[in-house]
Structure formats: C-alpha cells, structure tokens
C-alpha cells in the first residue's frame, strides 16, 4: 500500500511544480496542466488507493501462523518413544538397537485463520511432520455471541483440541519440554476430536468449556469414518484464574468400543482431571512457574487388551472365560513441573510424570523425570535440549520385573512464525 501512496504524493508534489514551470516558461508544443486535470488525476489515484485498500482489508482477514520442529533424538537401546511411528496407546513405536539416534521433523505446522466478520471465524490447521504426510490437524468454525461486547461466548463445531485439563490445549510451540506427559499421550492420543464445543468467559476469573465429541480421538483407527458408539462423549471444564495462579477441574464421560470378531464390546470411559499453575518472579532470574495436573478414571488399557483379547489368524477374539468388563481398568496419572526463566534468553525445566494404567495391578507403571534447557536464539527460534530418565516396569519372566534401558536425549530446533 505504501508505494501507490508514495507515487500519489510524488505526483502531487511534482505536478504543481511542473505547472508553475510551464507558467513561467511554456515549453514549445506542450499544453499547460490545468487544475481540473490535476484534480482528475488525484481522484483517479484516490479511487485506485480505495480499491487497493479494500483488497488489502480482505487479505488482512487471513492470518497465517505455524512452526517447524526439527529434532534429533538419541536413546538407549530399549527406548520406547511414543512418537516414532505415529503414536498409539496399544502399539507404541519402538527404537531398535540399530536405530537409537535419528534426525526427523517432529512437527511442521501451518495454521490459516480467516476472520470473516466480528462474529465468526474459521481455522484450518495442517501438520506435515513425523511421517511426511500432510494431515488435517484442526478444522473448525466458531460463532461468537453478538450480545456481549467482548463476545464472551464462542460456539465451535469441527475438529479441535479436547477441552480437558491444561496440557492438551497448550500449543507444542510454547511447551517447555518436547512432549506432553505420558498420561495425556495415552488418554488423549492426538489431543483432538470432532464435535461441538461451547467456551464461555463468565467473569475475568471464571471460564467454562463444555463439548460433545465423537469420542474416539484423531488417532483412533475408525476416526475418519464414523462414531462407532453412536452416543456422544461429554467433556466439561471449569477454570478459575486469579492473577498469579490458575486452577481447573475437568470431567469426561463416554463410551469406548473395542472391535472384536463378532459383537464389539463397549465399556464406560470416565476421566476426572485437576490442574493448577502458580507463577512467581525470582530476583535476577525472572519469571518461573510451578504446575501440576492429575488424571484418574476408568478406561480400556493396553495391558488388559493384550490379556483378554487374542488376535490369532487375523481374528480378534475374547480369550475364553475372560470377562469383557475387565477390558477397562481404573487408571491414575499426572505430573508436576517447574519452569524457571534465566533472563530473557534461557529457561530451565524439570518435570516428573507418572502413568499407572491399572491402579489395581503392580509393576505396570511408567515414571519419567525430564529435565531440559531452552535457549532462545531470537524472538522466533529456540533450541531445546532435554533428557528423559524413564522407568518402565516390564515383565521379565517368572514373576520378576525389569526397567528397560530407554532413557532419551532430545535436541530440537524450533522456529515459530
């Protein structure tokens, strides 16, 4: 827009000077420029600028944002990274001995937002990381209420983050450690689902989110086609924000289908979560925060699936005599996390997270101590170095258990735009 304006200004400045020159010494064979001609020229410029302004205003409704995370991982021989093959709670990817270090693109994301009017907007969000396949991560339309000045209520329909807890909706581009907690990864694999959501800001402190979802989540095998349970899952969250601290309670209720040869088995799925964050400023160092989140509930877990369902010859059958109600178990999980900035360019992080898929069974827990450093190269690029000390209780025969060597170094460069 600046160039046409500059041209118009130049024309404005140049033409009167030219006219004056011609008044003083009329050039041979030339016609003096009249005021009417200047006026017409100006009007022409104004019209062009108005047209371009209109076009520019339309373009300004499009907003592109995104980020790239280029990553290197070095793991111990038995490291079990949930992200190697596109995660699944039941079949996590595995590092094998010949492949304990690698470079890959963890996330390559592009988000397009179109603010079509003050009362509605649409978002399309793609990811092309990990397996180099471009896939739709989010796609939704949001309607904003017309009856409150700040549009305190928003109704969203489409594919979006499940409004449960704290970690899920926090973008990977701002998270201080490369991956979310194990409990979140297992319970909300992919973090997103399809449905209808109502977000409300009741007071500056109190906000709520309620949603009806298909329930499978974007990483479930039957996600794209249908909702096999037909009934919709419900999720609700109430959050209170009081200056330097936030706290929220979340609740999820639904059904889960386990596909079998013959009639499928449906089990209840309930999840309760509590999260809290507290912020402080340390002298000389800068801002810091303490965060915690716990999950508990009842859900199908991978171990009971392996114990109760047999998959010989392509068939998925219940092991004779096993009760299908035992597919679902009571689970517990959560994390505590500490983040401390060290000036504007560095950040220290530590997190301890646990995941117990069956609260009634021993020796099936996952525990991880993750520590990391973020170094900010500029306002858009950062380097993350983290180390995960992982304890995975695995059967070692004859009633004994072992902790596989699966600790992991991660080096990641991220650019956000």
């Amino acid at each position, binding site marked *: 827009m600046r160039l046409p304006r500059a041209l118009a200004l130049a024309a404005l400045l140049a033409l009167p000077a030219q006219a004056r020159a011609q008044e003083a010494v009329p050039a041979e064979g030339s016609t003096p420029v009249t005021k009417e001609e200047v006026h017409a020229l100006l009007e022409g410029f104004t019209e062009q600028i108005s047209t371009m302004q209109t076009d520019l205003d339309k373009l300004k409704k499009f907003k592109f944002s995104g980020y790239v995370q280029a990553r290197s991982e070095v793991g111990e021989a038995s490291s079990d990274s949930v992200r190697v093959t596109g995660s699944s709670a039941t079949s996590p990817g595995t590092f094998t001995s010949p492949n304990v270090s690698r470079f890959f693109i963890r996330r390559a994301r592009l988000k397009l937002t179109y603010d079509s009017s003050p009362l509605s907007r649409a978002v399309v969000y793609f990811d092309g990381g990990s397996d180099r396949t471009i896939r739709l991560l989010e796609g939704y339309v949001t309607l904003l209420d017309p009856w409150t*000045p700040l549009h305190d209520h928003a109704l969203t329909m489409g594919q979006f983050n499940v409004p449960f807890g704290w970690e899920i909706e926090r973008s990977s581009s701002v998270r201080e450690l490369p991956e979310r907690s194990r409990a979140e990864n297992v319970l909300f694999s992919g973090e997103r689902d399809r449905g209808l959501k109502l977000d409300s800001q009741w007071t500056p402190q109190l906000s709520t989110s309620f949603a009806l979802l298909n329930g499978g989540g974007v990483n479930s095998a039957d996600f794209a086609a249908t909702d096999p349970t037909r009934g919709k899952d419900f999720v609700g969250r109430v959050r209170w924000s009081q*200056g330097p601290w936030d706290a929220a309670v979340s609740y999820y209720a639904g059904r889960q289908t386990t596909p079998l040869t013959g009639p499928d088995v449906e089990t209840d799925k309930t999840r309760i979560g509590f999260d809290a964050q507290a*912020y402080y400023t340390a002298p000389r160092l800068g*801002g810091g*925060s303490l965060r915690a989140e716990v999950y508990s509930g009842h859900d199908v877990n991978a171990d009971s699936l392996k114990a109760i369902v047999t998959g010989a010859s392509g068939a998925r059958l219940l092991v004779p005599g096993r009760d299908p109600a035992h597919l679902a178990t009571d689970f517990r999980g959560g994390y505590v996390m500490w983040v401390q900035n060290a000036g504007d*360019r560095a950040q220290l992080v530590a997190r301890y997270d646990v995941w117990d898929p069956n609260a009634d069974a021993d020796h099936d827990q996952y525990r991880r101590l993750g520590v990391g450093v973020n170094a*900010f190269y*500029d*306002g858009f690029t950062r380097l993350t170095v983290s180390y995960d000390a992982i304890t995975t209780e695995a059967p070692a025969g004859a009633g004994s258990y072992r902790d596989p060597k699966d600790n992991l170094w991660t080096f990641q460069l991220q650019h956000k735009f």
Partner: protein
Amino acid sequence: MNRTARLPSTLAALLALALATAAAAKPVSVKGSDTMVILGQRWAEAYMNTTPGQVVMVTGGGSGTGIAALINGTTDICQASRAMRPDEKLKLRDRYQTMGVETPVARDGVTIYVHGSNPVPSLTIAQVRDIYMGRVTNWKQVGGRDATILLYGRENSSGTYGFFKEMVLANRDFADRLQALPGTSAVVNAVSKDPNGIGYGGAAYAKGVKEVPLKKDDGGAPVLPSLASVSDGSYPLSRYLFFYTRQKPAGDVKKFVDWVLTPEGQKIVGAVGYYPLK
C-alpha cells in the same frame, strides 16, 4: 615478528576489546504506540544527552505491535496507549512466566478532531458512539450542517483504537465505512482537509484541526482536554500512557524508566503536548 611473540599481544587486544564491549552500555529498545512515538523519541534524545554512552532506540508501529515485540523478545520496553489485554498477558506468561509489569508514564486525553470550519459546538460521548457505529450519519443530526459525516480512525493494532473502542463504543464494532489510517498524524491530516470529517487521537496531535469539547451526557458541561481536566478526570476520555516490561525493570532499562518518571522526564511530557503524571 614470530607467532609466539604475536600471541600475547593479540590476546591482550582481544581482551581489551571484550572488556570495552562489556563496558559499553547495551542499547535500550523501545517499541509500540504511535501516539507515544514522538514522546518516546524526545525522552530518548534528552536521556542520551544526560547519559553519555547509553543508546535508546525508539520505534512505533502501534501498541499491539509493541506488545507483540515484548512477547517475542525483540524490545526491552513496550510503549502502549492502552492496557494489555488478557490474551496478550497469557502469551507473555507462556513465554516468560510473567504477566508483565505496567508503569504509567504520562496521561493523555483522547481528542475528537473535526475540520476547522465545522460548526458543531460540542458532542456527548453517546453522540460520538452513534457517529462511529454508523447510527448517526449526517452532521445535522448532532447540530451541524447538512452533510454526510466521514469517519477517520486508527488501525486495529493501535492502542488508541482499542481505548476508543472500549471507552466510547463500549466494545461494539465500528461502522464499516470508517477509514482506518496508519497513525494519528494521518488522521489529523485527513480531517484537516475534509470539512465533513471526524477523527480521534492523542491531544498532542491536535494541530490544524478543531478539537470538539466533550460532554459525559446531555446534562454535562462541555470539556476540552487540558492538564486540569485530564488530571481531575472531568475530561471523559482521559487515559494513562504506559511502559510495559516483561518483568520488573533492571539495569539500563530501569535507569531509563526511572529517568522518565523524574521531573526532568515529566517536563518533556508537557512539552510534547501530553500531561505529566503529577
């Protein structure tokens, strides 16, 4: 000279260079509000005169741009003519674990500008709201001549835009036909050439246009922005102008912020056309 002999002198030179670099004050960057850019530049010039070796760089772009720069870490101080919004505080918290530190540095009265020939004697806040929301479209509806009102305003990255929208429009939307201009100077320039135009912006920019006295309501007295009316709150559109930092100012940033709040710094506020804090 052999290499062994040259090494100590090279190291000494490098050490001297490093010490000189370390001793040199780091430039303080200030970015944000277009309303405050001239004020910021005057502060910077005066401060650099009194503090040899210290560089203060001031740029505009709008309060929203300045706040984004604060979040991105590309400025030390954000100048803002509006308070930070909750979503901006959350972004700052995401990156720095802080909610930002707000320091009021001056006061201003957002002024309604019209062309010098416009006969309208005063406007109520409700009339200004109706004009900018498109409910009133002709000057004769508010005591002026029979002519269509042409609306000029600021782009949405501007803090003055945000303040005006909140305080005058009660956060409702502007009329579609408003022409958003990049900077208060552009608004003043447009209104000064348009007999039917109306604009708004900081008091310091009201040159070559008529300032319209404002009334809080129909029964209120018309008031123009002045040190007295802005200080005692009788001018309905008075506001603070802010410095924002990511955390409590320290080092060279603190020295500059502290200086801005001294009588010397506040004297410049009055000289530029705004109103000092005390």
